């Protein structure tokens, strides 16, 4: 019995000893593992730290780039809430750092046109960009309001932001164009003064010639005087155009509505081109309902039609036909100016309203031309609340269609 107990206790002792050994082994292993863990944690920490530093460097670089952009930059989400603005944006608009975060762009930066009318959020470029998913740029001068309520003119471009195929927002870059506007204004004023100075002596020349036309002249003399008068009238038109463009670009033009007898103006305009037209053997047909009156800006309408007719006659080769026809539609007046001329090459058609643009196929047959006429026409049409469009086929002809409220 004792022996049994003894051997049993021996067994336990052995077991204990074994266990203690095992424990020691485990402990050692644990120590080793812990050490290993500690080391790898340290390495990991170090790596994370390094990576973070790297990331921070990249971020700092990005931020430095963003901050250094002279142009204001605003990024918004799909709903027009501000995600990010750069330093220049805050500086230009007078906001403090972080103040604009998460706010609606239209609330933070109210935009107005040259008349001071605030542009509703729905009509802003950013809304258009998010809707069309394409980059848009301002074509007319817009004004941004600073935090303190003062405004300044801006030029801006808005582009959509995509991650993969998902539209996540828009980014807008804008520039304070106060200086440009000042230079533009000075240039405009110069143009305006120069035109006025040219006008007075020209008036004298024109009046002498127009009174001479009424004298008893020989056929040859009459022809010469007529041509000289026409040339001086063309020069007057050019000067008038110069003046009008400088007014248009100053944004200072308001249409003045009055009753206009269309047929009378049409005849007057066509008379101006008679000599040129006859010289080039071109036929001109005028169609206008008699006594049709419209309420519009007479000078501006004359400018549009004079330009369209002059282009049609200029860009139609000898023997061609030009037609100017007026139709009264429900709530608008439609005027078509159609020619059988050179036409506008398909691939160049979208460039038509650009300033100084001239189609490539007319440069050689018709050297005289500045590419300013249609630029002006498109701007004036907008001013009188109308629309203009055209269809054109090369060597077949062009038809411009003007629609404006009656």
């Amino acid at each position, binding site marked *: 019995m004792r022996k049994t107990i003894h051997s049993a206790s021996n067994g336990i002792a052995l077991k204990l000893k074994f266990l203690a050994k095992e424990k020691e082994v485990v402990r050692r292993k644990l120590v080793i593992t812990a050490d290993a863990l500690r080391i790898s944690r340290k390495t990991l920490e170090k790596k994370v730290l390094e990576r973070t530093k790297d990331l921070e460097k990249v971020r700092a670089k990005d931020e430095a780039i963003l901050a250094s952009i002279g142009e204001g930059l605003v990024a918004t989400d799909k709903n027009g809430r501000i995600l990010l603005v750069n330093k220049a944006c805050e500086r230009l608009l007078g906001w403090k750092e972080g103040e604009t975060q998460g706010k609606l762009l239209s609330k933070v930066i109210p935009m107005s046109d040259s008349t001071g009318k605030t542009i509703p959020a729905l009509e802003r470029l950013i809304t258009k960009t998010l809707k069309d998913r394409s980059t848009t740029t301002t074509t007319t001068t817009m004004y941004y309001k600073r935090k303190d309520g003062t405004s300044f003119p801006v030029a801006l471009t808005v582009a959509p932001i995509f991650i993969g195929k998902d539209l996540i927002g828009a980014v807008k870059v804008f520039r304070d164009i106060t200086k440009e506007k000042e230079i533009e204004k000075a240039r405009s004023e110069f143009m305006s003064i120069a035109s006025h100075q040219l006008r*007075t002596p020209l008036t*004298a020349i024109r*009046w*002498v010639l*127009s009174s001479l036309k009424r004298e008893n002249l020989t056929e040859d003399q009459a022809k010469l005087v007529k041509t000289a*008068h026409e040339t001086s009238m063309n020069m007057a038109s050019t000067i008038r155009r110069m003046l009008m463009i400088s007014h248009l670009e100053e944004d200072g033009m308001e249409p003045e509505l*009055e009753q206009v007898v269309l047929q009378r103006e049409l005849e*007057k305009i066509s*008379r101006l081109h008679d000599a040129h037209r006859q010289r080039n053997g071109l036929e001109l047909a005028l169609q206008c309902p008699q006594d049709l009156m419209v309420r519009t800006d007479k000078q501006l309408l004359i400018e549009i039609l004079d330009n369209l007719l002059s282009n049609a006659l200029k860009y139609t080769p000898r023997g061609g036909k030009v037609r100017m026809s007026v139709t009264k539609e429900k709530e608008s007046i439609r005027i078509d100016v159609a020619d059988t001329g050179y036409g506008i090459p398909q691939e160049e058609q979208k460039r038509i309203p650009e300033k100084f643009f001239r189609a490539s196929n007319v440069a050689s047959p018709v050297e005289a031309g500045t590419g300013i006429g249609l630029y002006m026409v498109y701007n004036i049409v907008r001013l009188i609340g109308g629309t203009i469009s055209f269809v054109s086929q090369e060597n077949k002809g062009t038809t411009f269609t003007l629609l404006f409220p009656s």
Partner: protein
Amino acid sequence: MSKHVLIAEDDTALADLMAKVLSKYNIRVTITYNGKEAVEALEKEVPDLLLLDILMPVLDGHGVMRFIREKSLECPVIVLSNLSDKETRDKCKEMQAQNYFVKNDLDDDDLWPAIEGYLR
């Protein structure tokens, strides 16, 4: 008796030129170079026609028309101006200017018949 035209035009070259053209038609012409001179001429003699510029020193064309109205002078007025804005044109119409010609407009050929119309 020959007809009498009064010209009020501050651009001396233009005024002299108009006078020369008109005087060929057996028309007596008085030239004035500003509104005040024109008013003084009107006080002396009412012409058969007044050719009136608007932008003139001392007294402008509106001032001259005001004088004509105040004195109830019977004198047709043709305005010849560089100004083409509707406000000016309306103001002249209100003052009973018979014709309004914008110097830079397209209606040269209408100018002389209009002038002749008052001198028959």
